[in-house]
């Protein structure tokens, strides 16, 4: 369900859907940036507040030009992998503020019969979206409309493939963790921030974390899972469990506590070491207000920033289990 939603449909969009999903755990609110914030359960002043964050935006395209024959030019919204675009099918979302109209389109490609050199990668500049709408395209579609390749989830062996698994797989892991915590005593006050705008530079997480009362934060995002031809010293293993972050910008104390929690419970986990910035919302959240000690918990993903992203559901489950145990105080950093 999470992967079939997007931010561009009114009134039902990914933020309102996520707010709805959080409602059973606590009061959830959406803000003007497209974030969803939720205070889970009871908050007591003697406990520290732990923020669980995952982002709900996804990579997309945006209409920049509409021509007389019904073809559109688009720009990138986030770092979409341009190599996937030729001959892909897309959905164009046009909003009048109240309702959304969807239009079908096909990204152009030049057939092999006419190619001179097909070894050069396609460039976004050379591609158009064919809407089949002719002159009417200008009436029905506006510059600024968003465009997605809407691959719905599909089971593939032990994996699930879909668009937007970056970062909906993590949104799901957080929701599964909250379910496990229902009726249980936790070591922290739990807050959830489902942030917007991560793919454009943590634009949602900055104000979102500012509005929270977090003392500590766990940032759930996807990380590179090993694909065919890559060696095991390069990237995380698909099916190897949550990847716990280690980085100069992260809290080593949180890293150690998460690792210990996983080890004590016998949960599979792996370590993801970064030399500096993590490329996630953690980079912004850690320096919000007077500073919020943070750590990343990542789900390995294949083919990041394509419409065929793939994750192992066991990794999602194990990430949820680790998160729930940590919240319960598996290895607590609450009272330092």
């Amino acid at each position: 369900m999470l992967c079939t939603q997007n931010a561009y449909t009114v009134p039902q969009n990914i933020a309102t859907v996520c707010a709805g999903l959080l409602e059973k755990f606590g009061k959830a609110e959406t803000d003007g940036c497209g974030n969803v914030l939720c205070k889970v359960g009871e908050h007591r002043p003697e406990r520290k507040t732990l923020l669980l964050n995952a982002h709900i935006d996804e990579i997309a395209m945006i209409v920049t030009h509409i021509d007389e024959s019904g073809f559109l030019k688009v720009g990138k919204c986030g770092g979409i992998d341009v190599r996937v675009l030729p001959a892909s099918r897309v959905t164009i979302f046009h909003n009048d503020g109240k309702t959304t109209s969807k239009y079908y389109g096909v990204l152009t490609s030049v057939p092999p019969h006419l190619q001179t050199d097909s070894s050069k990668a396609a460039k976004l500049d050379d591609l158009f979206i064919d809407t089949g709408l002719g002159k009417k395209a200008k009436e029905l579609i506006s510059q600024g409309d968003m465009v997605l390749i809407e691959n719905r989830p599909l089971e593939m062996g032990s994996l699930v493939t879909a668009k937007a698994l970056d970062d909906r797989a993590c949104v799901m892991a957080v929701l599964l963790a909250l379910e496990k915590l229902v009726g249980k005593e936790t070591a922290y006050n739990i807050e959830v921030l489902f942030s917007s705008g991560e793919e454009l530079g943590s634009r949602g997480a900055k104000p979102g974390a500012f509005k929270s009362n977090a003392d500590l934060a766990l940032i759930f995002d996807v990380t590179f899972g090993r694909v065919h031809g890559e060696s095991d010293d390069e990237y995380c293993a698909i099916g190897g469990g949550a990847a716990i972050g280690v980085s100069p910008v992260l809290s080593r104390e949180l890293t150690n506590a998460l690792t210990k929690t996983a080890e004590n419970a016998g949960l599979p986990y792996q370590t993801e070491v970064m030399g500096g910035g993590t490329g996630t919302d953690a980079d912004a959240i850690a320096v919000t207000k007077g500073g919020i000690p943070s750590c990343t918990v990542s789900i390995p993903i294949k083919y990041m920033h394509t419409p065929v992203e793939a994750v192992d559901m066991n990794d999602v489950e194990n990430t949820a289990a680790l998160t729930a145990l940590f919240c319960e105080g598996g290895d607590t950093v609450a009272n330092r």
Partner: protein
Amino acid sequence: MRTDEYLEELCALAGVSGDEGAVRDYIISKLSGEFEYTVDPLGSVIVRVKGRNPAKHRLMFSAHMDEVGLIVTFVCSDGCLKFSSVGGIDSRVLYGKRVFVGKDRVPGVIAGTAVHNLSDEELKTAPDEKTLVIDIGCSDKESAEKLVRQGDTVIFDSEFARFGENNETYCSRAIDDRAGCAIMLKMIEDVPEYDTTFCFVVQEEVGLRGAKAAAYTADPEFAIVLETTTAADIPSSKAEKRVCEVGKGAVVSFMDRHTLYDRELYRMAFDTAAEKNIPCQTKSVVAGGNDAGAIHVSRGGVRTAAVSLPCRYLHSPSCVIEKSDLEAVYRLAKELSARIQQL
């Protein structure tokens, strides 16, 4: 049944070259005992239809059942599949597409290195079948081989879609040449004016092979090939590079890479189109080729014409045609076949 309904049903079937069985079975089922047909040794279906009148000339219509796709060449130790393309596919349309492997349609994705992890040099190069694999979600060779085998054919995951103004633009894989097959089924259903032989042939995309054998068996004096041809009418291509345009009617070729077409039939096609008010255009670039290449040199030679649908993004998962062109090709094919009998 309407031609576009035949087309939608035909496009739902998998029929990569050499693996056209499902398309053949469908076509035979539509002949429903009413029409006499044979399946030749290569798998082409040859239907001899009695017209309302006996024919003066032996006329053959031909369209191919096969489509471009991929074939599994090797199952790797990590469960990924190496593949080769079947027919001409631009490698730029491969990466990041969903596919179905084999008869059981095992889902997979065409996979490679994440964009973030490529060098600047790799970013400039289109990933090709040497570096790409199909990921079917298996983590080792053993579990992958429970689902697929070497030699399985692979199609793009690409549902037939109607879109654009009035939903009269169609998008699907395999429109090349299920569109020709759909038109022939409609012509058979309507029963032609004169006796006519219809050949639904195999293996066009791997070198016009099925048509070569079928033309020998059908032994025609005249042939009309019903095809789809490259329309490059996108904003970045200049008028002289567009080949033909979607929505501008049937495409009649004077020459492509395999055939110099019969001049009298070429002119006759345009005269007929003008007379009957059927939109018609020519192919303005000498490129591509079709079964006419094999048919016109069959036996002692066959006078041959090609009437095609303009089709954008040919040989990709998303071929695009328009309903009006489908109708124009159907009408022109019908009129032209009657006119040939007057020669």
